[in-house]
């Protein structure tokens, strides 16, 4: 029982770090562009599929860690320009537009990759002893990559010119423009970075999940719950909430079924909305 609890908690923790990457992209896109991105789960799915293609082409899974975020970044920039920019300032329309985008992404993947889910073997095989249980080495690598990507994102946001511009435009687009900040470029970059983060999450997660054209559908609600529990627009809060939720679901799964675990997350979200609508982690926002 303790072994199962430990195993599922660790799995939950690592999955939470991956979800944190994806939810951060969702949060930053919502915070800056007022876009409720229904296609964000599919950005993760595109990441897993591109990781599979990258492996087929290069024969080296690690190449995907560089190639996939780059491709996703470019795709994100193109999508922002073609789909999001024309509906800027209309959050309600963004739900319809990104829902359409979600369907297009799924169907394009179904046409090219196929409808059959596939598995990718982890690039590092084997297990190691951890707290008395045998644990997949790759999952620990996945945790390391996720933490590194989260740290890189926050360093980018706080210590680069573009990151500073993103924080400024998020607060007041007009004043930022009057100070010489190219707000339109910042919007494009924000959407592209959000897609790249989800895509990177896809590469990290592909060997520990299945690669499937519907792979993003289940993930989207978890990301939204993380954004709400962490506090709208609170990026460190979103990351912390994603880890907390996945860990909680992992713990609940050790003695109940996955449906009950998801119900627990929904109950937590409802409690936060009722008792602390500003989010659990208010005070960490920058």
């Amino acid at each position, binding site marked *: 029982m303790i072994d199962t609890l430990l195993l599922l908690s660790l799995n939950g923790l690592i999955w939470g770090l991956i979800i944190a990457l994806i939810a951060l992209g969702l949060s930053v896109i919502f915070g800056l562009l007022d876009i409720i991105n229904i296609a964000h789960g599919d950005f993760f799915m595109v990441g897993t599929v591109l990781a599979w293609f990258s492996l087929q082409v290069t024969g080296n899974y690690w190449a995907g860690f560089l190639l996939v975020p780059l491709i996703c970044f470019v795709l994100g920039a193109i999508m922002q320009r073609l789909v999001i920019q024309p509906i800027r300032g209309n959050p309600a329309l963004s739900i319809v537009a990104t829902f359409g985008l979600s369907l297009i992404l799924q169907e394009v993947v179904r046409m090219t990759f196929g409808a059959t889910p596939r598995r990718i073997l982890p690039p590092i095989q084997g297990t190691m002893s951890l707290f008395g249980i045998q644990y997949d080495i790759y999952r620990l690598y996945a945790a390391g990559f996720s933490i590194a990507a989260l740290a890189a994102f926050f360093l980018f946001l706080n210590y680069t010119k573009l990151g*500073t*511009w993103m*924080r*400024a435009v*998020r*607060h*007041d687009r*007009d*004043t*930022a*423009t*009057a*100070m*010489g*900040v*190219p*707000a339109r470029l910042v919007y494009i970059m924000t959407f592209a970075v959000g897609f790249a983060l989800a895509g990177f999450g896809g590469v990290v997660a592909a060997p520990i999940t299945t690669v499937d054209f519907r792979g993003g559908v289940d993930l989207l609600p978890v990301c939204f719950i993380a954004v709400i529990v962490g506090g709208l627009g609170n990026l460190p809060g979103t990351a912390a909430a994603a880890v907390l939720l996945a860990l909680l679901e992992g713990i609940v799964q050790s003695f109940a079924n996955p449906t009950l675990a998801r119900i627990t997350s929904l109950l937590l979200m409802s409690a936060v909305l009722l008792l602390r609508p500003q989010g659990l982690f208010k005070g960490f*926002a*920058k």
Partner: protein
Amino acid sequence: MLELRDVHVHIGKLHILQGVTFDIKPGESAALLGRNGVGKTTTLRAIMGLAARSGGKISFDGTDLSSVAPHKIPRLGIGYVPQGRGIFPNLSVLENLNIGTQGKRDTEREDYVFDCFPRLKERLKQSGNTLSGGEQQMLAIARCLMMRPKLIILDEPTEGIMPLLVSQIRREIHRINQSGVSILLVEQNVETALKLCPRVFLMEKGVVVYSGTSGELKTNTEIVHRYLGLSRKPAA
């Protein structure tokens, strides 16, 4: 330097600017005055490209601003201090200062603005929202100065500021003007405006209805009463 010719702005169905015409010469300090809602802030926003023009022409140093993207207008040499100061509360003082500068930090320019506003140097790492109203106003002006502007547009810089700091901000605006930078000031505080600006434009219902010197305005009680709603002469 700055020329506005028959500028019109519509916001929704409202015709806010109905043909604004005036100009600012190099090194000049001018005030744009009028009651609330006559279109002063909209005029400034139109100059900065933040309010879409429906007619007319705005040019700066011979460049038609309608052909310039709004974020490139500050790079031509127009600095803007918006109403309410527009400080980014989630950015540090240093980040606020350098938001518009291109490339590396301009430490020489930073030294200049710290010379103008020494208090900012003590608060470099503080977030913008931790500053007092007066300090935020200093930061808003300093942020403009970082871009080495030829003209600074200030929208009610003394609004909501304690009197002690008002005189310091007034002194610094005068000093900036003395260094050769033109000033266009929108101000509810008529006394401040007339002290700082030898040239005055009065707006009423979206047009400039009076253009003259501050000396003329001080003696023209009828104009002052009709367009500014003041019943007695503003103090010299």
